[in-house]
């Protein structure tokens, strides 16, 4: 396991139940600065629930999550302050349809007083330029392709200067020919040292970009390892079975 930097997120025995159904049955792991942790697993395994627990979009029913040293599962903690540092990218983009692309990006930094509106505009344009979508600044999300929408969603998250980015199946809702442009952008971010936790079915991305790959099944981490060992010498029998099917 490659440990690059200080611990950013520490998860201790995380549990989540929806009613009587236990989805997460005790997950313990750490995410370090600069890591790209790729989570794979069959559908219904709890991998998305785990990811969504990291910024408390799902409220854990047991265990603790420390983000930069603070236990964010403590009800006394104001989660909004920590979420500013935890960016999230969704499967269905979730851009704001009533706002222009530029407004989508500047809304949060301005509303939260992080940037003045002119600073936010400048930053948004710089980011848009970087992803090659500057000409879309004043259009509305509806006019964009799926791949463009997802790149904007990534830019929107980046505009908050997050310490970590969570990706919840970012390419699963895309037409095949648009998957590449989103993965390329994610690759670039990884190269720049962004800490990322990615739930995906893109095995190529996991192998090439991931610093650690995690297999979640039946609500627990069945195996985690460096991509090479994970894919070439899987130990868990469920993982062996899974990889046989998807590779």
């Amino acid at each position: 396991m490659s440990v690059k930097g200080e611990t950013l997120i520490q998860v201790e025995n995380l549990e989540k139940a929806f009613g009587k159904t236990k989805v997460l049955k005790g997950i313990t792991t750490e995410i370090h600065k600069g890591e790209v942790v790729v989570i794979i697993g069959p559908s219904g395994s709890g991998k998305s629930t785990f990811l969504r627990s990291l910024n408390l979009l799902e409220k854990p029913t047991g265990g603790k999550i420390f983000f930069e040293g603070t236990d964010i599962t403590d009800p006394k903690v104001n989660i909004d302050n920590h979420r500013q540092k935890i960016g999230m990218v969704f499967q269905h983009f979730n851009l704001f349809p009533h706002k222009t692309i530029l407004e989508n990006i500047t809304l949060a930094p301005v509303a939260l007083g992080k940037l003045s509106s002119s600073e936010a505009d400048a930053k948004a344009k710089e980011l848009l330029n970087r992803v090659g979508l500057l000409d879309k600044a004043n259009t509305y999300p509806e006019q964009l392709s799926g791949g463009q929408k997802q790149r904007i969603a990534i830019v929107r998250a980046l505009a908050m200067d997050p310490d970590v980015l969570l990706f919840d199946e970012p390419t699963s809702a895309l037409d095949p020919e648009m998957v590449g442009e989103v993965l390329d952008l994610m690759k670039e971010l990884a190269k720049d040292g962004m800490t990322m936790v990615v739930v995906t079915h893109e095995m190529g991305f996991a192998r090439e970009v991931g610093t650690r790959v995690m297999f979640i099944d039946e609500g627990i981490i069945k195996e985690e390892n460096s991509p090479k060992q994970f894919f070439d010498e899987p130990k868990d029998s469920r993982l062996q079975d899974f990889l046989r099917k998807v590779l």
Partner: protein
Amino acid sequence: MIYGALLASNSFADRFYQNFIEDNRWLMLLNGLKVTVIVTLEALLIGIIIGFIVAIIRSYHDKTGKFTILNAVCKVYLTVIRGTPSMIQILIMYLVVFGSSSLNSIIIGGIAFGINSGAYVAEIVRSGIMSIPEGQTEAGRSLGLSYAQTMRLIIMPQAFKNVLPALVNEMIVLIKETAIIGYIGEQDLTKAAMVIQSRTFDALLPLLAAAVIYLALICLLTFFMNKLERRLRNNER
């Protein structure tokens, strides 16, 4: 007055003269229209404020399970107001709640209609909030926005756009509903037409005039609301 009765079967010009020109009776209609408009605006303002507050409390409760008592109060309010005739509500407001107060009946009427309208607005707005996909809230909250900021900046603008036609519908109903304010002694447009009729013994013209004025008022409202709706929609393309 007697002449009125005698002349009732006369030519249209004579009837028009008696009903609207003689004794400046058109002024009664104009003053009645003023009362109708004032009461409607009052009720609209109160109704929208109550409606949005109730809708937000109810959807906040649905999402988080908090505000149990407030939510229960809102539910009782909705049940009672929607389950009883507005006629009874306005009479209770006038004769019981403000029975011993010297408050102007235009204000009492506006309050009664506002409380009534609020119940309908609340459910319209709540349906609008529910029509916005959960992902919008999640996107807002994941950026660090509070529940209130997410509501104000992301959910409400979209919800408002979705429910505008239903809100316009409620406004139209409200305008016409104010016609019962005559029962608490206020001379609105409908009552003015009745008063003219009682003086000239001609029912057709004053009632027709009142109907045309209501129609014009509502067409005007619809026109501007359609414009607003189009402008809001244009924003997305």
